[in-house]
């Protein structure tokens, strides 16, 4: 019976269906990663620069977002925004919610990375005649990002895992599709969950290997 469950759980149709979910999981992840790396960097730099009022305003909003559960942000974007007339397709809603949350998390990593750079690097550049933008772009950011790669990758691993929360708004990503598959037949539960486990593990373990490789290379 169990063997039969495994065989039919992994029928061609089911596998295709689950892999389609994987494509959505990876799609949400990749788009959110790109957006949150850019937005997170800008917010992190604003916080680091200590611009009067503006930086603390941005910092406060950032802190609020970081301390909310991601699922709540997803619900907010998908269920609350339509109430004020903003209707978003489910994929886009997920990407916006994830990017908002991850930007806030990455901003904190970027701010911390910048703060870890020796003040002498700033003074050397300024005394040398570079303006603030040039100092940041040519001297500070390249050094800061080198240090930030490991924490950024571990944040990205969380992001990939957290896409499964979007099953809460019925985004057809991999975890949600898993639920659909084992809803057909309870003997599919174990094989499907094992398969999801393996796929998530391989994805994120791959990312952590990249992080380790960078760690070694930069040590």
């Amino acid at each position, binding site marked *: 019976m169990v063997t039969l469950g495994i065989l039919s759980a992994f029928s061609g149709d089911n596998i295709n269906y689950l892999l389609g979910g994987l494509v959505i999981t990876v799609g949400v992840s990749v788009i959110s990663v790109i957006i949150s790396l850019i937005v997170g960097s800008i917010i992190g730099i604003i916080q680091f620069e200590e611009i009067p009022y503006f930086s603390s305003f941005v910092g406060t909003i950032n802190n609020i977002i970081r301390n909310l559960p991601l699922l709540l942000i997803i619900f907010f974007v998908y269920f609350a925004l339509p109430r004020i007339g903003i209707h978003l397709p489910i994929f886009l809603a997920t990407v916006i919610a994830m990017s908002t949350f991850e930007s806030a998390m990455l901003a904190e990593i970027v701010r911390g990375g910048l703060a870890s750079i020796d003040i002498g*690097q700033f003074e050397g550049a300024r*005394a*040398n*005649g*570079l303006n603030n933008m040039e100092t940041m772009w040519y001297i500070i950011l390249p050094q800061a990002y080198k240090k930030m790669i490991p924490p950024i990758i571990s944040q990205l691993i969380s992001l990939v895992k957290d896409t499964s929360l979007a099953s809460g708004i019925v985004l057809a990503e991999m975890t949600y599709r898993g639920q659909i598959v084992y809803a057909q037949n309870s003997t599919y539960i174990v094989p499907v969950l094992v398969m999801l486990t393996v796929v998530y593990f391989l994805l994120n373990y791959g990312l952590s290997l990249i992080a380790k490789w960078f760690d070694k290379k930069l040590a």
Partner: protein
Amino acid sequence: MSMIEFKDVEKYYGDFHALKNVNLEIDAGETVVLIGPSGSGKSTLIRTVNGLEEIQQGQLLVDGFDLHDPKTDMNKIRKNVGMVFQHFNLYNNKSAIENIMLAPRLVLKRDEAENKRIAMELLEKVGLADKAANMPSELSGGQKQRIAIARSLAMKPKALLFDEPTSALDPEMIGDVLDVMRDIAADSSMTMLVVTHEMSFAKAVADRVIFMADGQILEDSSTDSFFKNPSEPRAQKFLSQVANH
């Protein structure tokens, strides 16, 4: 014409009064050494000259620009006033020659071939032509400081500020750095302001010596008269303490 001029300058860090009624004039081409016990405000004073520290009162004119005027573009001053730091502050992510070439490329828009030629000349001048491609982490302290000096010179500045350039160096490294500084001082058009504890360097190179304590300039006299015949009791005490080493 004076290159650097302090008029009744006051500087505070919160409640701490770091510079007290500083009046000082340094002419173009002069080499001035600033000495005094630690905590006397020497580094603070030299760091106000290129705007790394702000002053709260008075007037500070550098190369004709008023540093206390918020409208003054600090980068225009820094183009003409280089600084060499105690801890070198080389760009850790750039090779030695890139450290030298970066600011001329970005700030002066110097032609790349010309930039490289000047950088190589300077590397030869400081005796490190063979280290052009090395990263700062591969250089000794003395080598880093000589690269840092070359980096400042590449901007062809009118004035150079040295903030304890040899204090972080191993004793055997100091000589090479001082030799380079002597060469620069021999160029009569370069204005040099040097904070240092190297009394032999001060004696040999300085036109004038300024002695500071507690944020005040206590003595400002020619090098000869300062070392032979210091008028201030605190300067006399300081010199006798340094001489005992």
